[in-house]
């Protein structure tokens, strides 16, 4: 807690000038992701205009849709269909004050409105709420890998990133959702299922397997404040270690003995690879480029979060509508997460991130801030096309992004996705975990690293 709020102060000092909304960060009392009427949205480029729901590919139902390019029309009805969802309990939305531990609770959806009187003292910290669930994640994963090899160097490489220093954001969200859905369906009668816990571990393993391969591809030097795997070991061994982690995760998935969950999580693996392929090339026109970027973002980041929360709801016995709601929460959360990540790449210091900044530019990748910036500075276009290869490109692009509204616009888009995630989180029956989902979405938006 303490260190996070310090980071928070730094965030404000550093970002105060451009942060779109000046609200205090992660755990600030008046934090709001919900776009209030007073806030004027910055202009978005054509590809992003007209509501985020339209430009993000809608990959519901765990079907093999990911190869489709995002369509502009199919999503139009989605907000309606969600608001008519049967799991909206009118009484739930209306009773802003329901009691937990005798403390006054406030419905987060209304927190942006300035209300007189004392603000609630009780704040849900997802990490604290799930302390018991999360403390053994890394140990558990290491044990699973340990059981699957007798070879020390393989074990060492495979567990290198399971050192307990990660944010564990994927397991955190998966367990929060699992508990929130369990509560939604069974009240206090159902605790966390062991299969749901497994999914949380598996999500982190799939993520790490992709990190390991990314490091070989990108030849990165640092990750999480230490030398990355490709610096430490033979690249061929590192690649195999990535395959190994994936294989063990896949065995764990199979042991859950649930056909749908296996399908959903296999789709994640496929999305990750396809997202990586999309990163190899960019599109010619601006319009296509933004859609391309968002699809890539979905596949590389959001798919994993969305489909693991979907999996835990399937395991809870949720019907299709409820698990799709969970999926939509995860998808929005994941998109926001990556947008913020891309933004932090421009504003955060290397020390805070544990990896170098402007890394994306150096890798030749045009992320949201750049794509927004080239609305105002068309001279960025040729640089995007040549992947910032020429001397001075990276510095020039970096400067232009800061001069433009690109960072605010990225922040705004991230915020929209967060609001949507929060809106969905509020459709679940009120419980500490449901509140945790709301806070987690806020945390994603306001994080420093």
């Amino acid at each position: 807690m303490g260190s996070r709020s310090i980071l928070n102060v730094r965030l404000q000092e550093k970002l105060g000038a451009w942060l779109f909304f000046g609200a205090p960060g992660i755990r600030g009392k008046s934090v709001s992701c919900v776009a209030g009427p007073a806030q004027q949205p910055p202009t978005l480029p054509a590809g992003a205009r007209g509501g985020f729901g339209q430009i993000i590919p809608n990959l519901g139902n765990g079907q093999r849709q990911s190869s489709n390019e995002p369509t502009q029309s199919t999503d139009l009805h989605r907000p309606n269909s969600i608001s008519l969802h049967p799991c909206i309990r009118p009484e739930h939305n209306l009773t802003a004050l329901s009691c937990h531990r005798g403390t006054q609770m406030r419905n987060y959806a209304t927190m942006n409105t300035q209300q007189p009187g004392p603000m609630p003292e009780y704040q849900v910290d997802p990490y604290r709420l799930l302390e018991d669930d999360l403390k053994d994640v890394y140990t558990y994963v290491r044990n699973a890998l340990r059981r699957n090899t007798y070879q020390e160097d393989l074990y060492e490489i495979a567990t290198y990133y399971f050192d307990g220093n990660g944010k564990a954001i994927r397991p955190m969200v998966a367990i929060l959702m699992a508990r929130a859905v369990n509560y939604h369906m069974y009240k206090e009668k159902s605790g966390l299922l062991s299969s749901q816990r497994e999914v949380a571990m598996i999500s982190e393993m799939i993520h790490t397997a992709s990190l390991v391969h990314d490091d070989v591809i990108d030849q990165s030097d640092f990750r999480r404040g230490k030398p990355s795997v490709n610096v430490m070991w033979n690249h061929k061994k590192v690649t195999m270690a990535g395959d190994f982690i994936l294989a063990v995760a896949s065995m764990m998935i199979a042991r859950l003995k649930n056909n749908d969950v296996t399908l959903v999580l296999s789709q994640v693996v496929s999305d990750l690879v396809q997202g990586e392929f999309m990163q190899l090339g960019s599109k010619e026109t601006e319009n296509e480029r933004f859609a391309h970027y968002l699809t890539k973002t979905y596949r590389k980041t959001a798919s994993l979060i969305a489909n693991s929360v979907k999996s835990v709801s399937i395991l809870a016995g949720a019907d299709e509508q409820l698990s799709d709601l969970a999926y939509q929460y995860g998808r929005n959360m994941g998109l926001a997460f990556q947008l913020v990540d891309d933004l932090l790449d421009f504003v955060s210091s290397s020390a805070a991130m544990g990896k170098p900044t402007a890394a994306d530019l150096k890798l030749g990748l045009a992320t949201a801030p750049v794509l927004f910036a080239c609305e105002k500075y068309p001279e960025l276009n040729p640089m995007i096309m040549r992947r910032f290869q020429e001397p001075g490109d990276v510095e020039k692009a970096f400067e232009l992004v800061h001069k433009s509204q690109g960072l605010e616009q990225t922040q705004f888009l991230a915020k929209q996705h967060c609001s949507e995630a929060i809106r969905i989180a509020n459709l679940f029956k009120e419980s500490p975990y449901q509140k945790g989902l709301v806070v987690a979405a806020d945390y994603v938006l306001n994080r420093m690293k």
Partner: protein
Amino acid sequence: MALSKVLCRQLPLRKFLPSVSCIYINNKQETRLLSSSEIQFAKLAQEKKPDWNRAVSEAEKIVGYPTSFLSLRWLLSDEIANVALHLRKLVGSNHPLLKTAKGLLYNGKNNMQAWGLIVLLISKAAGHSADIPDMEQDKAAGVLHSQRALAEVTEMIRTSHLVHKGLVNLQPPNNIDATGDMMFGNKIALLSGDYLLSNSCIELANLRNQDLVELMSSAVRDLSEAEFVGPRDKQNNPLPAKPKSNQVEYTQFTDNNLEPLVVSEALGNAQAEWTLRHVLNAGSLLGKSCQGTLKLAGHSEDLQEKGYLFGKHLALAWQACLDREPFQQGSTGPFSLVCAPMIFTLQHKPELYVHIENGLETVDDVDYDLLRKEVMEGPGLDLTKKLQKEHSQAALQVLNELPASDARTALANIIAAMQES
């Protein structure tokens, strides 16, 4: 790809080796088939054409259309189109991915498909339980659609592993990649391998059989484990472990093949080390695929287990056959330091290990001519031949328990063709 190598190189071998008939096959008609193919072998040898191709192409007819995953569907996918585009940039560089890709695409279409083919043949030879609905059967070929999908998965996993194995180690400071070609090649190789792997994940998930998913995932695990066994040079090429003086029998593969293999005990024991390396490298995948396909057909655990043994032994026989090939009269150049003849020779003459140790930096530093001479003079080649025969016979023994069929004959023919060489 390894297969195509076997097949291309095995033809000169055939001249020296006596033909081995399939003593296990008693069916009259099959005997006739086999002997006729033996005649064919003789003819083909004169024409310098490998009989292997014949055994394989006949077998293909039995299970319907060619089985390779290199189907239109695969070739037309966006990602592969992308890869092809990027491969062009690599032309002129030294990245081994080009060689791998060439091997996959051009090295004789018959050979590429052999692993999937074997899975389909054993599927057909074993048949399936009566309560499987017609909808799920490919009546003409005599296999289930799910079995065909599994055969495809087997090939995708194998190819993915080969492609990943073909990366170049660019770990600093021995990064000699001035042009960036190597890095780019690695990127494409890694992604292509991952693409195949992710596709197999989805194909497997669609079969809706979690035991099968677990089994095949454990085969992927075994493949990745294989790359960590024993000492390695900078490019991760394997070197044999220092030979131990007391040899132990290696009995690992009985209870539960979902468990990982114990490595340390096997290292330094010639046969055990060789077996361990190649079970992880090849036997596990083919064995588990054969086991899996019998699972899909609803056969008993007992028969599934035998399917595993069949695939495992076949893969090992194959490997032994491959291993002998660099020691034909007149061969030159480097060979795998962990091939059976070399490992057996080391066991016989441990003082040779100093020459192996020259390769710890890079296997290119090893004096291959010297080692080849030692192998040719030692007992290594005979022991390897014996090893191959043991595994061939173990595979045939399983076949014998299946009812006579054209698919069974085809498998026996393939084994015989291999034994011939």
